[in-house]
């Protein structure tokens, strides 16, 4: 396989980043803004709600890169907090969008997530009747997200939002009904990176390193060095940015078309959709299951976890890079020696580290068709299939043609796990947020066909070992493929998998551009 040198490439497309809301093109990141608070608004009288909106728009942070300081180190001047906004379909209705514009929204969005629960596998304990109280009503109209450097900045910005809401008692209210820690019911959902030794990490509460392979699209403004492994895989093994229209409306997508979007074009251009899901993690159940299975598994507990996710829990290294405990030890030793040289000021070690870290995302499953390294049903192989679904030589125009139209831009953070002991009943999990131009084609497809079904992987009815809607039946299983080489390991079967992750709420949101927000606030949306 050959790789392009990302740093030498130039981006051909530039987007109007001042018009696109922040966190769409580039994630705010767990390191810069490790804390977040999400709250949900209900609109009452249209006129007053629009007045409120007009004032709120001034606080919204856009996708534009932070300004550079004039001081000698030229650091980026980041605000203490950010604010973003999205609407449900009923929210847009309440804000008085014309009928013709409303009718232009796709059915997935207009129905909302609750009505799509069968498609999503939100059944049984994950069914909408078990969701947090806020979702039992049908008047969630808007989502407001505050991301911040620390909790003080969150409180400050949230209070400012509260003041603005108080000034518009006829227009808007912040809804309560979100389950918080220690059986509290709160008017907001807090989320935070998991901290270790006082520093934010990329961990979630099962102990996996998460959020590594987000897609790279044309115009996103990220460094081209991040392209390999994140863009679309070309026939020669190189990577190109995905089409902008896969993630931002009003731009051409991978089918060389403009994504379907409501009129007028100014309403949809530079906007996008976001899936918001509160995914509760049953930490006790997960740990108990792994502990129990690890007794019979030929390998370490970490290896067993890696064989479920596709990445090593401690540092997120993919199984393609190290597929056994021995290989992992070698990789760790190599990394440690590079780190040591870096700390001693060895500049060539910096390049070596970058090269090694690149392989965390820049890989395919081409040399592992049988899944003896990364199991075919592992979480990362389902949710980002890379080129692995092209089972016949050159069956598609590009090896990853199927996945290129089904990439998920994840923007979530873990929640809970701080204020109470970790257990199944304690509040902890992931606020999953996924951005894309089509909820149905991207998120819903991945959830229905790749997470909760396995026909494309020739694994029958098997589901994603971590997030699949399992029920503890014998055949609720995950297969860890053996190694076909003589004398190697037989396959290992994880059976009777319980539901590790439960859905506790969420909805589909439209994230308008700044131009569209202003027009909505001023009642200027006119599709005629």
């Amino acid at each position: 396989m050959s790789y392009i040198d990302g740093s030498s490439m130039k981006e051909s497309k530039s987007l109007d980043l001042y018009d696109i809301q922040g966190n769409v093109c580039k994630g705010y990141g767990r390191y810069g803004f490790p804390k977040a608070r999400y709250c949900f608004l209900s609109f009452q009288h249209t006129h007053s709600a629009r007045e409120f909106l007009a004032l709120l728009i001034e606080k919204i942070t856009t996708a534009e890169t932070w300004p550079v300081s004039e001081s000698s180190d030229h650091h980026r001047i980041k605000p203490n907090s950010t604010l973003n906004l999205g609407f449900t379909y009923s929210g847009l209705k309440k804000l008085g969008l014309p009928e013709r514009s409303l009718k232009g929204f796709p059915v997935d969005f207009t129905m909302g997530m609750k009505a799509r629960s069968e498609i999503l596998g939100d059944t049984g304990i994950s069914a909408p009747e078990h969701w947090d109280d806020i979702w039992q009503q049908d008047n969630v109209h808007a989502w407001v997200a505050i991301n911040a450097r620390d909790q003080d900045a969150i409180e400050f910005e949230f209070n400012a939002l509260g003041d603005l809401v108080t000034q518009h008692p006829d227009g808007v209210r912040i809804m309560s009904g979100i389950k918080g820690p220690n059986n509290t019911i709160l008017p907001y959902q807090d989320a935070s990176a998991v901290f270790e030794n006082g520093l934010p990490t990329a961990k979630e509460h099962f102990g996996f390193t998460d959020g590594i392979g987000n897609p790279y699209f044309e115009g996103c403004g990220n460094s081209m060095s991040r392209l390999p492994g994140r863009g679309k895989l070309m026939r020669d093994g190189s990577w190109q940015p995905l089409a902008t229209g896969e993630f931002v409306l009003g731009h051409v997508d991978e089918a060389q078309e403009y994504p379907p979007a409501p009129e007028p074009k100014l309403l949809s251009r530079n906007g996008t959709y976001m899936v918001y899901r509160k995914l509760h993690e049953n930490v006790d159940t997960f740990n108990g299951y792994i502990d129990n299975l690890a007794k019979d598994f030929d390998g370490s507990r970490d290896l067993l976890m890696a064989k479920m996710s596709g990445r090593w829990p401690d540092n997120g290294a993919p199984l393609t890079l190290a597929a056994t405990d021995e290989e992992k030890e070698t990789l760790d030793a190599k990394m440690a020696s590079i780190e040591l040289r870096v700390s001693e000021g060895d500049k060539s070690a910096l390049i070596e580290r970058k090269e090694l870290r690149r392989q965390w995302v820049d890989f395919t499953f081409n040399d592992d068709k049988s899944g003896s390294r990364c199991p075919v049903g592992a979480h990362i192989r389902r949710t980002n299939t890379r080129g692995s679904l092209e089972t016949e030589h050159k069956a598609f125009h590009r090896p990853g043609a199927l996945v290129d139209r089904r990439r998920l831009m994840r923007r979530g953070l873990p929640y809970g796990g701080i204020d109470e002991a970790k257990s199944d009943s304690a509040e902890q999990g992931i606020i999953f947020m996924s951005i894309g131009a089509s909820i149905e084609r991207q998120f819903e497809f991945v959830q229905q066909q790749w997470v909760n079904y396995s026909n494309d992987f020739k694994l029958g009815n098997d589901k994603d070992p971590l997030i699949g809607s399992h029920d503890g039946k014998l055949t609720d299983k995950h297969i860890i493929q053996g190694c076909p080489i003589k004398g190697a390991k037989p396959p290992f079967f994880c059976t009777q998998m319980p539901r590790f992750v439960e859905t506790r709420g969420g909805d589909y949101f439209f994230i308008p551009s700044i131009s569209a927000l202003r027009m909505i606030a001023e009642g200027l949306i006119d599709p005629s």
Partner: protein
Amino acid sequence: MANTSGNAYGLTALCPIINGHTNDSNPLYKAAGESHDKEVRRILQALPLNQESPFANTDNTYLARLFILNDVFFQQGNDFKRDQLKSKYLCFNSNFHGELEPYLTSLWNNNENQVREIWQHCVAFESVSNANDFVRYIKSCQLTTTLFFNGSNDQPVAEQLKALYVKQMFSEFVLTQQGKSAAELKQAFKYFLQRVQLNDVKSPSWKPGQTEVTL
């Protein structure tokens, strides 16, 4: 073009439905009069599903479908002449294993009442009074096509169902026996072989049209 592919047969028959009112219409609709095609549609829409379907009861059906062709659709263009069908058609598609004659004979022999109920509304069906007549009738309505259902492996249905059954039972065996000693495995496998009866294609097995797995 050929109606066969390997051991699979792709049958397409277009049986013209009698125009006009039925003589013996459903009493509920008698006042308004009832057309033959509406009567057929009502029967088709009420056909039982899955294991109760007449096709589950006909040997070797891979996939079968009955529908009514109301008319042909006008495709875009500036044609002066637009074709129209002289009658509606009962379309019968079936993909099955083996030869046409035994298949149609099995359909008739196992479901004579339902076949008569459906096809009585078709032109000239009054001449059909036994399996041979039915075979002759369908053949006279048959089109040569290459319409095949790509989801079968060319084997008789009973063998395919048995293979599926054994595969699923073997999965269960593997899942329950993981980690056992060689002696325990040998013993369990012996019991497994007794239980699934590899050489008996009929039993135990899944039934045609069965949708629920009962392990």
